[in-house]
């Protein structure tokens, strides 16, 4: 059997940015201290015409531009997000139509807080492995919500990444995947509520750290690897502190995680976060590189992936779509007034 894995990838990050210091000043907080405390300098902001559907379409098109896959050969689309534009009506059908993958297509929208995108990769991998489809498209994307004045407002941002999964011209094989899941209510949004709620410090040790480190440790035990076996590691990045602490707890170094650590420059893209980090790694990866990815979704669970970059990455036309570094640099700053207007904080009935 041929190796199964990533055939191509693409990402999208809205170009508007707001500085954390600007948000802090509105709420009478010390911006430098908040920025340093969170490890985030600025975050991306979606414009009025950008949502999870448009970000997903852009990311999927970027992935298709880089490879020779015929969209008609994509047999499944799974989009993970906390901000699907519709409560009922799939984002996946919009994306499927936009990229020309309909109608011979399995589609479903996923939700598992920040890890639904990696759950989509697992589903596509299984469908390819079972020969139900030739290619699957998994996307993690969000325009994350945060109540004005809430701690989440400093981090909740917008962005996403798309991965075409298959077994021909695989640029990075998915050697193994493992998930660690419990019922842990650290962060949630009830139906018809505009903004999510969270358990404050409960989101740390018993939620993020327990799941991320357990998933990572268990996966390494299953595949028989150690942290030093990997060239790159990516952890879900709700802020700049958590992934660094998780990496240290597990024995990974800053050198291994810095390429995939994009949260200081764009904020937390929720379902996109770990997948944008992976895209950043694939932007520079060389054949033979070993990559370790651990996502995290509140509620709670982590998906772990043991990945090996293949020689085929040289044949991928990576230059045909912007790199993460280029998207980070392509930015336009806005102030809190404009931010409030375009993110619907001024909503009235």
């Amino acid at each position, binding site marked *: 059997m041929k190796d199964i894995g990533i055939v191509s990838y693409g990402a999208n990050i809205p170009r508007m940015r707001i500085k954390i210091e600007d948000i802090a000043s509105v709420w009478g907080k010390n911006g430098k201290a908040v920025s340093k405390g969170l490890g985030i300098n600025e975050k991306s902001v979606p414009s009025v015409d950008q949502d999870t559907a448009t970000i997903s379409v852009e990311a999927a098109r970027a992935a298709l531009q880089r490879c020779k896959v015929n969209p008609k050969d994509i047999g499944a689309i799974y989009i993970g997000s906390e901000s699907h534009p519709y409560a009922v009506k799939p984002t996946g059908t919009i994306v499927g139509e936009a990229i020309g993958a309909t109608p011979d297509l399995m589609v479903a929208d996923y939700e598992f807080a920040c890890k639904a995108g990696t759950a989509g990769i697992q589903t596509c991998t299984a469908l390819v492995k079972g020969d139900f489809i030739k290619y699957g498209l998994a996307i993690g994307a969000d325009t994350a919500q945060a109540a004005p004045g809430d701690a989440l407002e400093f981090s909740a941002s917008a962005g996403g990444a798309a991965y075409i999964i298959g077994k021909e011209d695989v640029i990075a094989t998915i050697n193994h995947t493992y998930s660690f899941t419990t019922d842990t209510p650290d962060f949630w949004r009830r139906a018809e509520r505009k903004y999510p709620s969270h358990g*404050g410090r409960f989101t740390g040790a018993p939620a993020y750290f327990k799941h991320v480190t357990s998933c990572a440790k268990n996966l390494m035990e299953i595949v028989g690897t150690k942290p030093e076996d990997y060239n790159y590691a990516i952890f879900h990045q709700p802020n700049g502190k958590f992934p660094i602490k998780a990496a240290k707890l597990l024995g990974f170094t800053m050198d291994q995680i810095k390429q995939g650590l994009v949260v200081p420059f764009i904020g937390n893209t929720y379902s996109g976060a770990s997948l944008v980090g992976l895209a950043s790694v694939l932007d520079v990866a060389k054949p033979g590189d070993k990559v370790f990815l651990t996502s995290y979704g509140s509620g709670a669970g982590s998906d772990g992936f043991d990945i090996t970059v293949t020689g085929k990455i040289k044949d991928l036309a990576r230059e045909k779509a912007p790199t993460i570094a280029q998207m980070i640099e392509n930015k336009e700053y806005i102030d809190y007034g404009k931010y409030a207007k375009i993110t619907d904080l001024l909503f009235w009935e």
Partner: protein
Amino acid sequence: MRDVAIIGVGLTKFGELWDKSFRQLIAEAGSKAILDSGIGGKEIDAMYIGSMSSGRFIGQEHVGALVADASGFSHRHIPATRVEGACASGGLAVREGFLSIASGMNDIVVVGGIEKMSDVAGATATETLIMAADQEWEAFFGVTFPGLYAMIAMKHMRDYGTTKEQLAQVAVKNHANGALNPYAQYQREITLEQAINAAPVAYPLGLLDCSPVTDGAASIVLCAADKAKKYTDKPVKILGSGQASDTLALHARRDICTLDSTVYAAKMAYKQANMTPKDVDLAEVHDCFTIAEICAIEDLGFVKKGEGGGAIEKKITTLDGSLPVNTSGGLKSKGHPVGATGVAQMVEITQQLRGEAGKRQVKDANIGLAHNVGGSGATCVIHILEAI
């Protein structure tokens, strides 16, 4: 009146104990104290439990019976009573246990103190705690405990020249002690700079001037002193027990820089023990905020009114000072599970007097004092202990 001794102590780790429930915590502390004392379950005559607001924190009242049940004594139908006096609930439970043995009614009493505070969000915890102030005259107007103690601190600074640096030194000292306490919530030292520059809460109090929200439980076993040697070689006698009240609202006080409840409870305890403040070798005082420790050492008579800040600066109250205060780390570093605090203070003093305080052991400690305050000083309970 009969003499009363402490023959066993037990403590849970203090902190954000996400994976332990209220009943697990109190059962752990209680069973440690019972094992430490060497008594059998059949010998327990009564239980007293200090808990400030289990109803608001975990939605459970009627915790006297719950604790007896959780401890496995439901079949023995032991009288179990919950005692409430805000953050002094634990100290009051100790005093009720003491009185019940002193009166001759009981021979052996298990006292517990507990609070499980981290199941609610921070804002709810603050709202719950302010119910210990005067709801009608203080809380309704939006004041919180940091606000009330900040007013005390401002007046102390104005009247006596106390400085923000001196407040910070209280936190630095207590963290240094807490770093040596394996049960403390924050087992780490902090620098003076960190304490002074911490995020503001209510000027002049910053984050590191405030005790934290904590889960934890503590327990002691009390016994008629004439029977104590049957169970332990190292009983610790309660020489004096004092309790006093004051106006619920801070603004109604004679002087907001003096907690008259402390002054009167201390007078009662010293008289009963036939001692003066000079006889005390170490003390656990109620440092819910750094200014509270400065007021406490003044109101307990260790230093003159207004000299508390200076005493901190002169390092009189450090672990190797002439009067070590809050060797456990205090409420600031050890943590402040409100209903447990008063009992936990008794645990620390007992361990010190037994010579079992490890790295934070005070040399030649014979007489210890525990000072537990409810609200901004409407209730105070003080115990003076001696190793016998």
